[in-house]
């Protein structure tokens, strides 16, 4: 052994030194200069767009129009959230448009009942079965309990057949009617039977599986009755169907090792077909349920708007403060308190301006709060949980993830479920805004706008890098440009071309930033 060289000063330990406000700001500027620009370009883009459209038409920056903008961007933002997950994996989901349409149409039909035709019922039953089977499989196959593994085929059979039997029983014994107490009792008994079968290993997973099983059973039975259902049945039916579609896509992609592009392209066609069949000859189906309509049409009273804003800002500050304390107590470098105060003030004043503007008009749209809540939830899932970490890992290096014992296939399947599920939510929001569904539900620009939103917001198409919030930022741009051009009365052709240029500009800025990052060794 040669003598070891004298150790240089340990750079790693230096990184745990506490920073001052000055250091922090300097570090930030340094990162920006070297190309780690985060959302700066998009904020700049928003300002440019606001200035251009306001000069061209003074109605652009009015409270009324800004509130409209929030409602207009809601659907593509929601679908974009799901797209971000798919892009993080380095995959693509081209089916989200018509999956959103399928969900919206399913919901509308379930609300209206009786279902339009046998075909729709058939497809609905098929999906309920598929979803039930797969969810059971997903939840139970990984249980590390040999006694339980033995029962898995049994579980699958029970999970598939009990809902069908109950559903058929309800269907045959009654004409058109909604779910009643005896049905629910029957379901509980069924769940009890399953519980007895599994008395050896009741785990949290199993309980979750049983609850999901119960819910799906109720939904299948409800749909099979063909009666008009309340929103709390119709909306879950649509969302379960959407998640089931994602499960189907994800399973085909992983099981046969196919490119997601092709499978979801097939999905795009197939679900467009399903929308057409479901709508049948009706052409347009009007949505009348006031709760569902409220998704896009409810506005918070002024005081409630302020209260919600205060809660959000306080939660932000409290969370950051806790984080800072914990880092300090472990001897890790923490954000200086001055920066925290500054950030809170900045966020608070931005939020206050937004609420104030909204209150000049109809108030803060409920869906605006919904968008923020979804963003927080999905960001948490992406950055603070194991699942999210694995999504990034699979997107960055699938082989490394596999060797680390991560089930790459399961992650893929779940991501496609998330994407379809969010598409379902987006479809319902869009249907509520338009207060009807028609044969083109989920068609048009929805798919491309959602993907563009995620990409403009800075999520990479090549996997492994991106943020859930990028979908919202990108959607502001897309919807803003669309809205502004609408005010100016530009033709559809001009709109398309300008949207294309915006998308291109965003990708170019991203590519330039990346190049500068590479040169300065950040990435």
């Amino acid at each position, binding site marked *: 052994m040669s003598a070891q060289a004298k150790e240089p000063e340990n750079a*790693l*330990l230096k990184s745990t030194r506490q920073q001052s406000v000055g250091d922090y700001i300097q570090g930030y500027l340094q990162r920006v200069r070297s190309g780690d620009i985060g959302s700066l370009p998009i904020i700049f883009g928003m300002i440019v767009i606001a200035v251009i459209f306001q000069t061209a038409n003074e109605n652009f920056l009015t409270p009324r129009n800004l509130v409209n903008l929030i409602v207009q961007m809601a659907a593509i933002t929601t679908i974009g959230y799901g797209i971000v997950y798919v892009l993080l994996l380095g995959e693509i989901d081209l089916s989200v448009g018509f999956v959103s349409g399928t969900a919206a149409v399913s919901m509308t039909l379930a609300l209206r009942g009786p279902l339009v035709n046998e075909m729709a019922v058939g497809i609905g039953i098929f999906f309920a079965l598929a979803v039930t089977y797969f969810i059971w499989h997903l939840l139970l196959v990984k249980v590390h309990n040999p006694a339980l593994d033995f029962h898995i085929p049994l579980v699958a059979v029970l999970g598939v057949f009990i809902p069908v039997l109950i559903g058929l029983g309800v269907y045959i014994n009654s004409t058109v009617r909604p779910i009643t107490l005896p049905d629910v009792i029957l379901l509980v008994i069924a769940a009890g039977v399953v519980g007895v079968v599994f008395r050896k290993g009741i785990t949290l997973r199993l309980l979750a599986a049983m609850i999901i099983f119960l819910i799906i059973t109720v939904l299948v039975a409800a749909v099979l009755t063909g009666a008009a259902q309340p929103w709390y049945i119709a909306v879950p039916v649509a969302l379960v169907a959407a998640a089931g579609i994602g499960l189907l896509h994800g399973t085909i992609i992983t099981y046969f090792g196919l490119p997601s592009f092709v499978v979801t392209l097939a999905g795009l066609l197939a679900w467009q077909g399903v929308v057409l069949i479901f709508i049948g000859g009706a052409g347009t189906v009007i949505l009348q349920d006031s709760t569902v309509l409220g998704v896009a049409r409810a506005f918070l009273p002024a005081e409630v708007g302020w209260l919600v804003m205060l809660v959000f800002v306080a939660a932000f500050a409290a969370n950051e403060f806790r984080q800072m304390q914990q880092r300090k107590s*472990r001897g890790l470098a923490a954000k200086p308190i001055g920066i925290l105060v500054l950030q809170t003030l900045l966020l608070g004043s931005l939020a206050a301006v937004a609420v104030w503007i909204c209150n000049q008009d109809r108030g803060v749209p409920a869906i605006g709060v919904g968008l923020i809540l979804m963003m927080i939830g999905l960001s948490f899932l992406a950055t603070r949980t194991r699942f999210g970490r694995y999504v*990034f890992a699979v997107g960055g290096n699938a*082989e490394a*993830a596999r060797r680390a014992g991560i089930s790459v296939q399961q992650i893929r399947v779940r991501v496609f479920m998330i994407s379809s599920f969010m598409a379902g939510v987006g479809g319902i929001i869009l249907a509520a805004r338009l207060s009807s569904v028609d044969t083109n539900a989920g068609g048009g620009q929805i798919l491309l706008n959602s993907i563009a939103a995620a990409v403009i917001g800075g999520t990479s198409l090549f996997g492994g890098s991106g943020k859930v919030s990028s979908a919202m930022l990108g959607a502001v741009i897309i919807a803003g440009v669309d809205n502004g051009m609408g005010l100016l009365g530009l033709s559809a052709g001009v709109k398309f071309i300008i949207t294309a240029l915006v998308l291109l500009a965003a990708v170019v800025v991203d590519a330039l930033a990346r190049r500068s990052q590479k040169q300065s060794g950040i990435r």
Partner: protein
Amino acid sequence: MSTKPLLELRAVTKRFGAVQALTEVDFEVCSGEVMALVGDNGAGKSTLIKGIAGIYPFDGGEILFEDQAVTLDSPAASAALGIEVVYQDLALADNLDVVANMFLGREQTSMGALSELEMERRCIETLTSLSVSTLRSVRLPVASLSGGQRQAIAVAKAVMWNSKLVILDEPTAALGVAQTRQVLDLVRRLADKGLAVILISHNLHDIFEVSDRITVLRLGHGVGVMERRKVNQQEVVHAITAGKMQKVPGMAEEVQ
């Protein structure tokens, strides 16, 4: 260095269809030593390692770990015993930072949320204990690290889990002079900390620098275990090639 082997393989065999990859090979490694594993291409080195890692279980023979007979039939079984493998291509996710990579697949959580701070602290602790001193921050994405730093992270990842045996498959094959130096120092420090290390390399120069003993495989047969201090490179080359060659790349000049 303790004299009792930590891991002992007795007459292990492995057959892939018509290919007899390993024929009654004996192998051992003790805690606190670096055991080099050398042999020509196709000699069976990787096969032996994969058997120990539980990726391709052996067909026959006995495996003793800490004097207990064990079966290594899955990667999980090996990991449970404290056997960690650093693969040649490292298996790091470029887009994740150092902490995320070190804990990949074994993240600490509390109530469903990642315990980032705890992981960051442990990560710094481990890297410091291995004297990995050139890293600026553990929050940098791995893509921005040098080859040597990445190798150090991969090794640190393997030693963080109370591992007892660390296996490195050609860890210096892709590295420059200075980075090779870093990794070899690290390998030596692992053994000095009391871990057992198995090092596969085609570079005899490196092997002579850090190893304590050398096991030579030829065409699936074990042809001997040598004390590094008692042999010179020529003798090892002789054992590897069955006397057909006098020199291999990477051999020190003075041997000529």
